[in-house]
């Protein structure tokens, strides 16, 4: 069921993920960013709990090595979490993004996307 965190290495790879997976959470981070490191275990836990192949994926994008993607989404602080549905950026629980290691907001967003993805997956399975 779970396939953990998707490490994105190129803009193409991220585009492919958005094409093939209905809901995507993206974590923009850097190696030497303490807050990114602090929240990483929680993010991995959410990925493990909520990921459903083709329906919900949790991506990690290193802003140093995949600059193009970070630039495109105008990431201005780290970590930044963005949300996508059918390839389009969306807000979750009224927030277009979560900036900083805000674990409560991230948990709420991950739970909500997990629930939506589960419904879609169930509907797809029954049809």
């Amino acid at each position, binding site marked *: 069921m779970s396939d953990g965190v998707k490490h994105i290495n190129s803009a193409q790879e991220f585009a492919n993920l958005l094409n093939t997976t209905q809901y995507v959470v993206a974590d923009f981070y850097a190696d030497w960013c303490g807050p990114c490191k602090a929240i990483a275990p929680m993010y991995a836990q959410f990925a493990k709990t909520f990921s459903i192949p083709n329906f919900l994926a949790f991506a990690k994008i290193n802003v140093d090595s995949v600059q193009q993607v970070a630039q495109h989404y*105008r*990431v201005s602080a780290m970590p930044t979490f963005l949300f996508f549905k059918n390839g389009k950026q969306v807000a979750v629980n009224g927030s277009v993004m979560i900036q900083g290691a805000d674990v409560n907001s991230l948990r709420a967003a991950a739970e909500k996307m997990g629930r939506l993805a589960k419904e879609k997956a169930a509907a797809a399975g029954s049809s």
Partner: protein
Amino acid sequence: MHSKVVIIGSGPAAHTAAIYLARAELKPVLYEGFMANGIAAGGQLTTTTEIENFPGFPDGIMGQELMDKMKAQSERFGTQIISETVAKVDLSARPFKYATEWSPEEYHTADSIILATGASARRLHLPGEEKYWQNGISACAVCDGAVPIFRNKHLVVIGGGDSAAEEAMYLTKYGSHVTVLVRKDKLRASSIMAHRLLNHEKVTVRFNTVGVEVKGDDKGLMSHLVVKDVTTGKEETLEANGLFYAIGHDPATALVKGQLETDADGYVVTKPGTTLTSVEGVFAAGDVQDKRYRQAITSAGTGCMAALDAEKFLSEHEETPAEHRDTSAVQGNL
């Protein structure tokens, strides 16, 4: 949970105390917190790059790596490390009581507490700062320097000390040019850092200059900084896509406000030459009680002192209150 000694903090003072207490088999519990005071576990060193003045690392060591090693050393000797932030403490009676941010109703107790909560970077609260905070303004150059909005852009650092110099030089890796605003007519930085800064081709240092207002573009990102020359009073608008503060620190004493004696600047007062605070059984180490030196090595030093002070305190108070009976008035035995 009851512990003999609880350490609150995650920097060099906290971990040095933990190493000593764990080796003394006092089973210390260390609350490293989760983004406590807005800083990741490991403390202020996680917001710096290379540490060149910590003895034992002749080639330098990254701040984060040094803290990872200290944490590993604490764990090696059996320190229990908890990644939750202590939100409340009650120092009015022993054992002391405390609760964490995520379980505020569940109280734990401790015979002694080592407060090593450190300090955090100060902000200026300029007009526009709230709006562009994290959208151009950052308290951590090392954390945020690599984000795309700063690439090949003009960046500004405010401050005249070593950390301002370090941040400015770090940012030259990303920005096209870095301007350092210094309120006074000279740098406070150590001569080696000042020399490096003043001779860096991508850095301009402007003396007698302060920030006045942060302005942004229609996309919600910072684009300009209004600055003022304090000698002439003349204002000028600089193009700036990033602003970094390096203007000193405030001690993290909100947790013990009103319960421990603090000085006019909010630092915990310790008995000179010791880590003893105004409450018996509570010890303070590191930046929370040090406005003078504030170095990783001096924090580690006071962390060690706090551990030894706590150990002595615990050995002198080994009997628990229930077992303790005053027998001095008893005359004979029937």
